């Protein structure tokens, strides 16, 4: 028994794959994925804003797709690949990834509380839809709430990142075809 379970609770041992690392967690069935990430695995970058799936501060990727970690039990995530904001910077150097750099360049965050959710939302979306237009991005950004920025700079940051990734791919393809 640990501090996260009650004396009468059923507990179970689950294995979670988070950011490529496998973690064994003893947890009660009712614990949500976000609570296990934050409090059991101490990955506190994922935030809790509403606990009912509206604000999106807890957005993580489950098998590459954006998911509200407050609406999912940790046990349901067993066997899936979970990706959190902690994965975005270079693990060795701590250097920010391109999406993170775009957020800072465009002032896409103020207090930073909603930011991990928007980053993971965008990361999942751009992987699926690299060709997304700015209007597509605005529509997806509307899935989450931000109270500081008025959203414009979040949309601009994600759009700039998408554009840069496309031009990089084009350059890469060009170089490849030249070789």
């Amino acid at each position, binding site marked *: 028994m640990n501090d996260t379970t*009650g004396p*009468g609770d059923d507990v179970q041992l689950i294995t979670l794959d988070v950011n490529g690392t496998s973690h064994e967690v003893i947890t009660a069935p009712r614990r949500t994925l976000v609570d296990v990430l934050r409090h059991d695995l101490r990955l*506190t970058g994922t935030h809790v804003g509403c606990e009912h799936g509206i604000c999106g501060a807890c957005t993580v990727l489950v098998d590459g797709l954006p998911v509200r970690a407050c609406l999912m039990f940790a046990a349901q995530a067993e066997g899936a690949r979970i990706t959190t904001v902690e994965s975005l*910077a270079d693990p060795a150097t701590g250097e920010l990834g391109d999406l993170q750099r775009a957020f800072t360049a465009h002032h896409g965050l103020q207090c930073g509380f909603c930011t991990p959710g928007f980053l993971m939302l965008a990361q999942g979306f751009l992987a699926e839809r690299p060709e997304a237009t700015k209007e597509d991005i605005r529509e997806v*950004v509307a899935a989450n709430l931000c*109270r500081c*920025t*008025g959203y414009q700079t979040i949309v601009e940051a994600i759009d700039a990142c998408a554009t840069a990734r496309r031009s990089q791919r084009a350059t890469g393809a060009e170089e490849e075809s030249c070789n």
Partner: protein
Amino acid sequence: MTSAKDDRLVGRSVARREDPRLLSGRGRFVDDIELPGMLHAQFVRSTVAHGTITEIDLSRVRQVPGVLAAFTAADLELGDITAQLGRPLSEFVPTAMPILARDRVRYVGEPVAVVVARDPYLAEDGLEAARVTYAPLPPITCEEQALAPDAPRVHAEAARNTLVDVGLFATEGIDEIFDRAPCVVHVDVRTGRQNALPLETRGAVARWDDREEQLVLHTCTQTPHQVRTVAARCLRLDERAVRVIVPDMGGGFGLKCVVGREEIATAAAALRLGRPVKWIEDRKDALSASFLAREQHYTARAAFDADGRILGLDADVVCDMGAYSCYPFTAGIEPLMASAEMPGVYKVPAYRVRGRAITTNKAPTAPYRGVSRPQYVMAVERLMERAARELRLDPVEIRRRNVITDFPYTGVNNITYDPGSYLESLDLCERAVREAGWYDRQAAARAEGRHIGIGYSCFSERTGYGSAAFAQRKMEVVPGFDLAEVRMDTSGAVTATTGTISHGQSHETTMAQIVADTLGLDIAKVKLHQGDTDRITYGWGTFASRSIAVGGSAVRLAAGKLGDKLRAIAAAEWGIPPEETELDRGRVRRRDDPDAALTYEHLADTAYLTSHLLPKDIDPGLTATAVFDVHNDGTFSNATHGVVVELHEGTGQVEILAYFCVEDCGVAVNPQVVEGQCRGGIAQGISGALFEQITYDAQGEPSATSFMDYKVPTAQEIPEVVIHHLETPCAFTATGAKGAGEGGTIGAPAAVLNAVNDALRPTGVELDHTPITPETVHRALTPRTPEQTP
């Protein structure tokens, strides 16, 4: 005295120092704090709006597995929170807010008991086992009920449920002015009750530190020193024995600038149990049981001459402050702000106002970004529009004839306005709207039967309130000054400590810009510390757009003093007067010999490690502190907003097609940060104008307890904002900056409402209330057949 002008960081959009940790999940917010042996608190809350508690039975709570304790008011014996104004009882009735309700509850959600368990899930289990019995009393849920002559009282001491009733101004002869005026227009403006809604809810982690003999209270507050004062008083500790530490904070917007009850109860539980206790508010409590704001009612009229020049303004303001007065501002915060500042940017020769705060059985209120200014600007801007219609003047032209143009200007409200760009911002905003083609598009749309409207609001925002300005409100505690300490270590790196506390405003960057410029230092060498009551003697925190104007000035002054000391040490080494030296990129240089320079590292080495070399009149060490206060009426930022909306007939939806903002906050320390404040503020203003409202039913039950029933706008509703900057530097802040935190929120509701009314012009319907709901718009656009007309 500093480096070359083109090296200066103030005025440049320097990349934020806060970002790397916040972007990589390494921020540390209050819920990220985990302490060994930590317990978790949640609150049993009133389920009735008004009633007497007849029994609190927590016996079954204490039997819930994992629950360690449950406390009522009687168990904890805490002092009350009482906010005071130095006004006679006829103007202000003080009321006490107990930490936990004793025998009486006054709103749904009022904390009645605190349950402490081993984890948050178990604490929630505990809440479900609580049994509280109430003898219900009739709830007061609206202004009309509250002010009725025989109304039941929310607080026994407050007759007619009135906590504040002041008539701050009444120009002699104002009635005659109205009697004789060729044009008198009226408005009846109401604004909905809102939640400031920081995305991070409130929370606290409390523990007793035996070695320091101190309660350490980590809490997300905009006013750490005020929380310390109240915690010490309620817990009956010396103030020294309380240390408040503010971690990263997920927004505040005013909701977190008052002292809450839950953080004190959390601290009391931690002391009682001898273990760390954490409380994290859930969204339901945050929406319905924290602090709300904005519910006001203006009955106002204005007199104009035939040319559209305003002759007089006469207003009655009623602010529904809910169940309690907030600390330290009191229930006077909204009516006093509205009364003092309503004439705003206009040359109003005669003014009368009555401002009232009423108490109702709703969650209490806190200052929310803009504080009364979004509402009184709306009332005044509606009066302007109405007069323009009556006098057949262009709405921009009537404003042009009335805005203050000669500064300094002392208004009928005894406030002296420092220079601003009221007329210039108005002209530029209109030009921006026109050049973007919106007037032509509006005409074309009207011809097609579409409803496009253009609206403006013109306003100023008093910022940098010093103690003189706050003293005018007659608060018992008078905010105003702020304190900064700047110190350099032996490596030449600088730590600046402030009494302000950033929670999205980017002070770690902007304050560092100020220090770096003042000392001619690489910004990477400067680190800001804030939000720790043990690291700075006192501070007033971050609210009222005061941080850069007041706190930034203190930082600038302290850094200047440190620079003077560096020059003095260098001058002593050279044997020349300090005036013959200057600071330049991390060195002190001789003015008469550009090649002679001593690095800060070298001078710091002298100051600390070889201080025997210092002359007798120079103390060892490199630390400087400074206090800054504003001794006049403050400094006024200003702006004009221009909005284009289209109303959709079928759905009643208000779509914002374009948004223009021309703002002037003096010297913008970091223009990107200022733009962020504008855009974010405008988004919140639009939220109030079109979407957000918490209503209460006849039983006093709040309508909104989740985001399912409180509509927070998303990227689909909030438009892009085109921003133009003007710069009228402030003459008395140390950087020339004025505050920039609230303007966006102040201007947006009036501009949106005016645009909606412009779109409705062909229908003859005029709307004066917010939020403007789809239902209202739909009804206004639907022609009524005679039998439908009541």
